[in-house]
């Protein structure tokens, strides 16, 4: 200890250290190997395909043989009449999704936490996360049935003065239905992580708060929330990283020409030009643009969070 403080540490070269470390802990490296391989094969190797975004990709010539065309695909994307609408729709669906489906599971978890009757608590929890196990295809077909011209949701909406016919084919309703059904499906499941974070809070803190005369509300505010704050922040940063990443599966199940206006997002556009029209080069470019925006948002959010409250994902 003492010598460490006085003498500058002479680090051995990296190879040397790796060799020593490997000898000592080779079992650990072995255990890590499958995961590393997984990322190499499925996450890093395919990145090479990004090259296609700068090529006039032809199947026969492959990734290495196709002609290089620079930023032509990006030019096409930025001048596309749909470009701003796609960005807007993606951001809005993400933003509204975040606005509702991020805080609600937390509030739900906090509420459950206050329930003292164990049996009731477990029942509510189970029921709330059951919808999570329903396939998205089924959820969407339920939406279609309820959203038809004489379906349940349309009827309820008409009762409140809606006169635009089937809600499921109305652009005005697309986001609400998309986010609402997401919320219904994922609320319970998303709250699990907060419930477990709540369970990890030291009970002595509550005792101390009680002795100090804090009521239930004050306990929630000053013990519970600070206790799960790191979890909330990390999850929020991760969610922000997906701000442009609205999944295409549910969108393409739900949208149609009548709801393109609000429902067509970057991912579904990539699906249409890439998979349906087989325009692989262009769709790679669109997706690459999407990923870059995502990365920027994620880094910014992380940076701000680190500055503000010392919690960050790296």
């Amino acid at each position, binding site marked *: 200890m003492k010598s460490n403080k006085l003498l500058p540490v002479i680090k051995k070269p*990296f190879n040397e*250290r*790796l060799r020593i470390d490997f000898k000592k802990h080779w079992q650990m490296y072995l255990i890590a190997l499958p995961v*590393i391989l997984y*990322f*190499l*094969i499925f996450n*890093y*190797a395919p*990145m*090479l395909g990004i090259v296609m975004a700068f090529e*006039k990709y*032809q*199947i*026969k*010539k*492959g*990734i*290495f*043989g196709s002609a290089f065309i620079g930023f032509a695909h990006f030019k*096409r994307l930025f001048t*596309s*009449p*749909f470009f701003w609408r796609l960005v807007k729709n993606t951001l809005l669906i993400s933003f509204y999704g975040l606005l509702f489906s991020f805080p609600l599971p937390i509030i739900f978890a906090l509420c459950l936490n206050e329930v003292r009757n164990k049996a009731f608590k477990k029942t509510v929890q189970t029921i709330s996360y059951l919808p999570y196990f329903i396939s998205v295809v089924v959820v969407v077909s339920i939406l*279609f049935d309820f*959203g*038809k*011209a*004489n379906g349940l949701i349309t009827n309820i909406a008409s009762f409140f003065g809606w006169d*635009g*016919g*089937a809600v*499921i*084919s109305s*652009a005005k309703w697309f986001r609400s239905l998309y986010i609402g059904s997401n919320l219904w499906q994922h609320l319970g499941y998303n709250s699990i992580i907060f419930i477990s974070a709540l369970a990890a809070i030291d009970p002595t803190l509550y005792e101390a708060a009680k002795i100090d005369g804090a009521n239930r509300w004050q306990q929630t505010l000053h013990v519970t929330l600070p206790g799960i704050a790191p979890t909330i922040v990390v999850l929020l940063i991760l969610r922000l990283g997906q701000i442009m990443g609205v999944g295409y599966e549910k969108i393409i199940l739900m949208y*149609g*020409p*009548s709801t*393109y*206006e609000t429902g*067509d997002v970057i991912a579904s556009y990539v699906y*249409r*030009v890439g*998979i*349906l*029209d*087989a*325009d692989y080069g*262009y769709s790679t470019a669109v997706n690459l643009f999407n990923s870059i925006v995502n990365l920027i948002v994620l880094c910014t959010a992380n940076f701000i969070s680190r500055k503000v409250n010392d919690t960050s994902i790296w």
Partner: protein
Amino acid sequence: MRKKVLSMLLAATMAFSLLAGCGKNAEPDAPASTSTAKTESTDSSVTEAAPADTPASEVYKGEVNQQTYPISQEKITLTYWYPNASSMGTLADYNDSEFFQWLEEKTNIHIEFIVPAAGEESTAFNNLFITGELPDIMYTQPQYHMYRDGMDAAIDDGYIADISEHLDWAPNYVSWLNSIETAKKDVYTDSGKMYGFWSFWDNIEGGYADQGLSIRKDFLDKVGMDVPTTYDEWETVLTAFKDQLGIEAPFYTSKKGIDHGEFMAGFGIAPRFYQVDGKVKFGPMEDSFKDYLTLLNDWYKKGLLDPDFATRKSTGVAADNDMMLNDKVGSLIDWGTRMTDAYISRGATNPDFWTVAAPQPKKSASDPDPAWREVNNNYRDIQAVCLVVNKESKHLEEAIRWIDSFYAKDVYLNANYGIDSEKDIVWREAEDGHRIGIYDFRYSNPDGLDSATVAAKYWAKNPPVRCEASQIEQMPPERAASYAVWSKYEPKNYIPVTVTMTSEEKAEYTQYYTDIEAYIEENEVKFIKGERSLDEYDDYRQTLKDMGIEKCIELQQQSLDRYNNR
């Protein structure tokens, strides 16, 4: 320390992925250079290329089978990409079909059917090229299943066999090419190659159509009206359906809202591209298209269209089964084979269920009959179905000979009507000796099979030679009457499916047209539902111009001109 390990790891990863990438893609790289050279040479010769000489043939339309059987001495298996999942009925495998079992015995070739999921056919077709594992034979409908860079490129890139080099293996096909005067223009590409085996009708001189407008006769009887012929009469009838019978969807189109051309033909327009005297036109850019949308918008407001049309799954000729069977549809565009009895065999509960064909409506009764503008142009000698062969197939000769068998009369009769040994069960013989399908066997099957399953089990689905009479003759006269109504219209303004763009043209075209099509579909629905005012139609057309529609029309015109000069 941790950061350094991480960066090393990253570097290692990158190196690894580079290597992995190389290994995977090095192979297709090599032949690519040769194919580029080829493409260039064909591109330059596109305009002056004259069709190669087709060998002469003494035989008329495959009347004498010139193949020798069995085609293969030892039993071989060919893979056959056959995107007909929705036509299988309850059959699990097309090998359960009597016809294909018979053909296997005759040719000594076993077929392994690859049937992509219904609705995923186009995607599945593209994927065949990406994986590089092409089946030996592919059944394609070129407007849906097409190599991205076009027919010539598919051959030049080494995927698809150029049939013109192998015509000596296909004597029956050659006999058809010699028997149909106009065929050569279609079967050769712009650069004089043969993309595949195109399908023919056996005899279509009198004109033929097996799909068109159909309307519920039992509903008409209930409201005491005749089959409508003008748009005004249609409105009266549909209104009666709605008001008196409470029909939910008096007129059913598809999720796009507009019809497939039959209904709008009276306005002198087609849904998308068509030609008038060699000049390419685009429906939505025409003035009449606005009038047509105004009519649909009016009808939508009055509740005469399907209120849920925009949420229907199908974009083609396929009504929502549940709605059809439960009397919620008053009129629609339908296939002749499906009309009345097929729905009853599928479970329509109403004993009076009866649909009949309606003529294409006109603006006034004194107008001349509109032209038939069906876009997928199935109704001339050549159909929009083409069987293509994998150039790398190990059994290229056997695959070509197997397909060629379908063009011989003894085989195509069995494919259309049922095999020889099923005489008087599945088909019977008319006085002059030709075959007629047995109606009751198909529509009230003794084994309780529904009509779609009967078709899949005893015949081949859309064989390369289809008998036009096979559908009509077996029907009782009142059912068969529909075909005569539809066949009245001259199929003249379509753009043939065999018109092809070069890969450069195609690339430019899709760059504009992909977005245009999405924009049009979106706005047509809005116009019909009244979410966008038709007063803005000129703005809408201006937007289409800004998006490049004129360039698309020009590219279509170029390829049509090349076709006309073949």
